[in-house]
């Protein structure tokens, strides 16, 4: 029987990981994601699973690397400055083709920034983040419910493609509380991992590495990684479209901004404005098709972010014809407001061009 509980986004992310069979969690304190670490400290040992507070984000991500190499589902979480520290480990995870789930409850930046919500780590998450040619699958929840289901799905994707899956949330999603349905997750058999390092009993010894001094071997690894990324692009794109069929203006937002845009959509429609919303759920791979379809219908786009404009690059790259793309963003931990969005939409429908 599915269970309905009232919980914070950070706690829901932890519960999603537990339901997905995460056997090891390594964390380090940083606001606004501490409830996730706290939830895991509370629940993982009680289930006989590993919880460890690491000495740094660097150590935490490398403990994940070790546990993943040993063949078990492992996870870490942090917020923006801590995620920057994890980039070294993420590059190695990518190179060693190790599955891992990393939750980034983004806060205001750059530098130490603040502990209010932000979305300015989009480029870092969707372009790789560390050194070398690699990608992470990037998933963007927009509700406490999705904090649970998306984190849970992240483990399946990570194992399926032997990739890092980053769940890109923000401080508001992490902190706020909503009713959450904990689904009856079917007990899935653990995925076979014929590459794991668990002792060479009855088989040849294995090694997991990212050092390939021979140029051709390193290129071979890179070509294999790219082939995996093409498969992910072909099979794993996720997005949600709302009222885009007749929309003159299509808003584009993920996470907390998508909630603001849903409010803006309701209010604009009440005022007779034909407005829609595309909510990318996979930020990488980025959904291109809905943008092309909307542009073919003559729609204009308004991208709403808690940044100076990062996802807007992907919207422009997705389009295959000229289209008006405008931006509304707030920074410093501020959240865009629905009425400001409606004001811009009104101008766009009236054909006024201010700025951009």
């Amino acid at each position, binding site marked *: 029987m599915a269970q309905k509980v009232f919980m914070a986004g950070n706690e829901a992310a932890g519960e999603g990981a537990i339901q997905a069979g995460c*056997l*090891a969690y*390594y964390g380090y304190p940083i606001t606004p994601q501490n409830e996730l670490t706290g939830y895991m400290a509370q629940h993982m040992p009680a289930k006989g699973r*590993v919880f*460890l507070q*690491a*000495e*740094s984000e*660097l*150590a*935490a991500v*490398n*403990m*994940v*690397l*070790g*546990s*993943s*190499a*040993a*063949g*078990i589902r*492992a996870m870490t979480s942090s917020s923006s400055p801590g995620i920057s520290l994890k980039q*070294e*480990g993420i590059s*190695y995870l990518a190179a*060693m083709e190790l599955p891992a789930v990393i939750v980034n409850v983004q806060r205001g930046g750059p530098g130490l920034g603040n502990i209010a919500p932000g979305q300015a780590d989009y480029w870092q998450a969707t372009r790789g983040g560390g050194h070398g040619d690699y990608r992470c699958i990037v998933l963007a929840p927009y509700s406490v419910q999705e904090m649970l289901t998306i984190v849970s799905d992240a483990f399946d994707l990570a194992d399926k493609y032997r990739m890092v899956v980053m769940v890109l949330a923000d401080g508001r999603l992490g902190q706020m509380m909503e009713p959450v349905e904990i689904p009856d997750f079917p007990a899935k058999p653990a995925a076979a991992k014929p590459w794991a*390092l*668990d*002792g*060479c*009993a*009855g088989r040849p*010894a*294995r*090694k*997991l*590495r*990212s*050092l390939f001094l021979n140029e051709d071997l390193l290129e071979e690894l890179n070509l294999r990684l790219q082939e995996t990324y093409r498969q992910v692009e072909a099979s794993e794109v996720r997005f949600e479209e709302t009222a885009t069929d007749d929309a003159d203006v299509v808003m584009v937002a993920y996470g907390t901004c998508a909630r603001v845009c849903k409010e803006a959509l309701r209010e604009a429609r009440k005022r007779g404005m034909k407005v829609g919303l595309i909510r990318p759920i996979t930020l990488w791979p980025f959904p291109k098709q809905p943008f092309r379809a909307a542009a073919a219908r003559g729609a204009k786009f308004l991208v709403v972010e808690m940044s100076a404009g990062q996802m807007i690059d992907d919207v422009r790259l997705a389009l295959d014809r000229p289209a008006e793309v405008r931006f509304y963003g707030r920074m410093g931990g501020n959240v865009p407001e629905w009425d400001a969005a409606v004001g811009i939409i009104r101008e766009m429908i009236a054909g006024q061009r201010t700025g951009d």
Partner: protein
Amino acid sequence: MNPTTSVEVVYHKPDSQRRVRTHYCAGCGHGIVHRIICEVVDEFGVREKTVAVAPVGCAVLAYDYFDFDVCEAPHGRTPAVATGIKRALPDRFVFSYQGDGDLAAIGTAEIIHAANRGENICVFFVNNAVYGMTQGQMAPTSLVGQRTATTPRGRDPKNEGYPIRMCELIATLQAPAYVERVTVSSPANIRKAKKAIRKAFQTQLDGKGFSFIEILSPCPTYWRWDPVTAVKELEKRMIPVFPLGVYRDWEKREEMKR
């Protein structure tokens, strides 16, 4: 007497060591340390339950010599990766193998905290007082006055501080079970080093916790001596700075409690 039956094998490569050509320089200590670790893996019969972690540095290619599972780690994060493996698979035998740059410079936080948690792993720390893989720069353990690529006039304590003594540092912590410094400078010392490595294995297999074996090792290439001179100079110059001996022994502690 039949000559074929009089032949007896008295010395062979350990089963858990691969038959490959070495990439290490002439007179390097890594080959000796690899060999004695493999001998001990064979003696304890743990090859099939061993997962080792290789560092960044000259010994990054350790996995080319070890015929058991080996994981690479980012520079200095070796104890964190070993922690992740051991926590995932507590019944496997897990050791990390690190050099002085990896362990005592970039990875200082990881080693101190793995030691402080008392992780039930073995750490084999090869200290040759220089960065060999990257052309002989100063290591945290380089001696005062030692000439390296980055201290061409010799290590000056006013500018670069003093060599870090890792055994002494780790022995200040409460959790570690076994801490010993050995060297591979002579056959007698190699036997003592093997004894220490055996004890480290036993410590983990008995579930006693963290063991740390520092092995003073020659680097003729970047010390700019021939291999024979290098081991003599190691004994003359390194051992006074890094005294050999046991810094922590869980067995002695247990005896004292009794």
